[in-house]
């Protein structure tokens, strides 16, 4: 799912194995119940992951959820198979149109993500208070 979200395609098994290896080595911080809740929501689909990622990028940029995404991004980047998605290139007119789409999507996701994470946080804190 993480590879699908970050690259737009299913990554090779090798990347998944490398990610699991990194997690076993403790490459990312430990998640608390709030992080786990967001993580579960994010794992439902690439779209929900984008909202969670965008929201956290503003609320808590170094949270364990974002750390997992950063780890997978690093693993995907450090490979010749994906190098064309990361290395600089010359942009033509069509590329600029595509880029405008990316910026629009990114801005929209940032607004929605911020609201979604704030709402989830509100519900989570109410839920915690009630259970106390």
């Amino acid at each position, binding site marked *: 799912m993480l590879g699908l*979200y*970050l690259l*737009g395609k299913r990554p090779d098994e090798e990347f998944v194995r*490398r990610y699991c290896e*990194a997690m076993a*080595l403790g*490459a*990312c*911080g430990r998640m608390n119940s709030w992080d786990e809740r967001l993580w579960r929501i994010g794992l439902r689909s*690439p779209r929900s*992951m*984008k909202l969670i*990622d*965008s929201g956290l*990028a*503003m609320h808590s*940029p*170094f949270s364990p959820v*974002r*750390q997992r*995404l*950063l*780890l997978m*991004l*690093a*693993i995907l*980047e*450090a*490979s*010749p198979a994906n*190098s064309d*998605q*990361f*290395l*600089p*290139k*010359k*942009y033509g007119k069509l*590329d*600029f149109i595509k*880029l405008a789409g*990316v*910026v629009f*999507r*990114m801005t929209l*996701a*940032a607004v929605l*993500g911020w609201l979604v994470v704030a709402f989830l946080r509100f519900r989570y804190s109410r839920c915690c208070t009630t259970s106390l």
Partner: protein
Amino acid sequence: MLHDFLVIGSGCTGAQAAQTLIESGGRVALLDVGEKDEHYAPLVPKEDFLRVRRTDPEQHRYFLGDRFEGVPMGSAKGGAQLTPPRQFVTRNAAMLAPFRDTEFKPVQSLARGGLGAAWGLGSHVFSDSELANCGLDRGGMFEAYETVSRRVGVSGARDDIAPFSLGGLQSLHEPLAIDENARFLLSAYEKRRRRLNESGFYLGRCPLALLGQDQGSREKSALRDMEFWSDHGRSAYRPWITLEELQRKPGFEYLPGRFALRFHETPDHIEVTVRRTDTGEREIVRCRRLLLATGALATARIVMRSFDYRRTRLPMVCNPFSYLASLNLRMLGRAGSELRHSLAQLVLFYAPEPAAPDHVMISIFSYRSLLLFRLAKDFPINYADGKEFLRFLQSALVLATINHADFPSDEKFVELVRNSEDPAGDALEGHYRPSAAEKDLIERKNRRIQRAFLKLGCVPAKRIDLDPGASIHYGGTLPFSTAEKEFHTAPDGRLYGTSRVFIADGSAFRYLPAKGPTLTFMAHAHRVARHALGLGN
């Protein structure tokens, strides 16, 4: 065995001091812990960055690290150049040379080559007034700069920054080619030179200890953009290159695996107590003359112990340091130069009053070989779209490191505190609290620098003021003094209170101008070695 000269530390200063001693016929031993990388170096191919990225299936091993230690999980800190193949530079430092956690966060090294093994190679000559403020005289340093720059090989251009960075330096290699991003900046500067100069800004190529022509067994830089990952061709100067050359010379002995704890001077020799890192046992190494070159912080620790903790607090200076990311608008949509080096392309000096000692030095880098993910974590955007967006921006990114001058004050010091967990029984603690006036001045200068970037066609995007200690430039712990005072250094480098112990690193520099001090520290080490030999200036 009694050594004629014992040098402690194999970093830039220790290596240069040892070379001077050997070239003058001395019998020299050099002692250090000697951490080195034998794991990653063989993995990195001798290819340019783009080829490596497109072809090497094993690249994740050195780009990310086998334990993924190259994936930074927190906010930006100093030492971004400590990639997995460079992390040996700080290995075991926290254990053997403990530093308590305060607002001052230094980087220490026990590596073969010390911090020089990951040095950014910026090579700047201090001006006469800066040398005088440090406690040095130009006469003694002039020859030392020439000798050291010939040894390490400094490439640079006699352009607008020459009066700030090159002084009268004669032995220069041809400047290395700069990349497209830097060329655009330089052309923007040339168009607005008069106005920028009137505001105190001067831009030019950064002098680097990166070869512009072959030198002995070292190759001219092939502009592979792999300087953060490997030392192929030995184009970049690293102190271990000097160490390897010294090991082939008669009269030189290398003693790795030893951590110096303290010294004791007897009427006819000096005894240095060291701890062996393999067995943990203590050992005594004897010498006639001792040169301490372990860096200002470690040297302070050794001296305070050696003087039986008569003082446990020493002054310290350290350049305040910030990162500034900005966008060069003319580079948007371009792929950038294929062949380039990873180090500072240009250097900008902010010197509204050219004779004043508080210039600001801004080293300017383009971004590519540290990979996109490191950049992505510091932008408040989602990673999936952010990857696309930052890929577009990366050729246009201009990363600047801003160094400010630092002057001593009562609120900047290191203290040796008892620490039962450390086998030596103590730990260092750094305190660095600049005054409100200093902070305000730095902030005002930083804002002016951001405005200067706008004039160069760059839009500042983000500035990060790093914790004190992040510049990795430390000095002032045993300041120069012409009067005999304990915990001070004589102008010839001798430590007062001793007759044959010399301080060959930056400990004696009373202030640090806003320039990379490494070339000056090396020149000073050469000069101190000559004094230790009894040759004076």
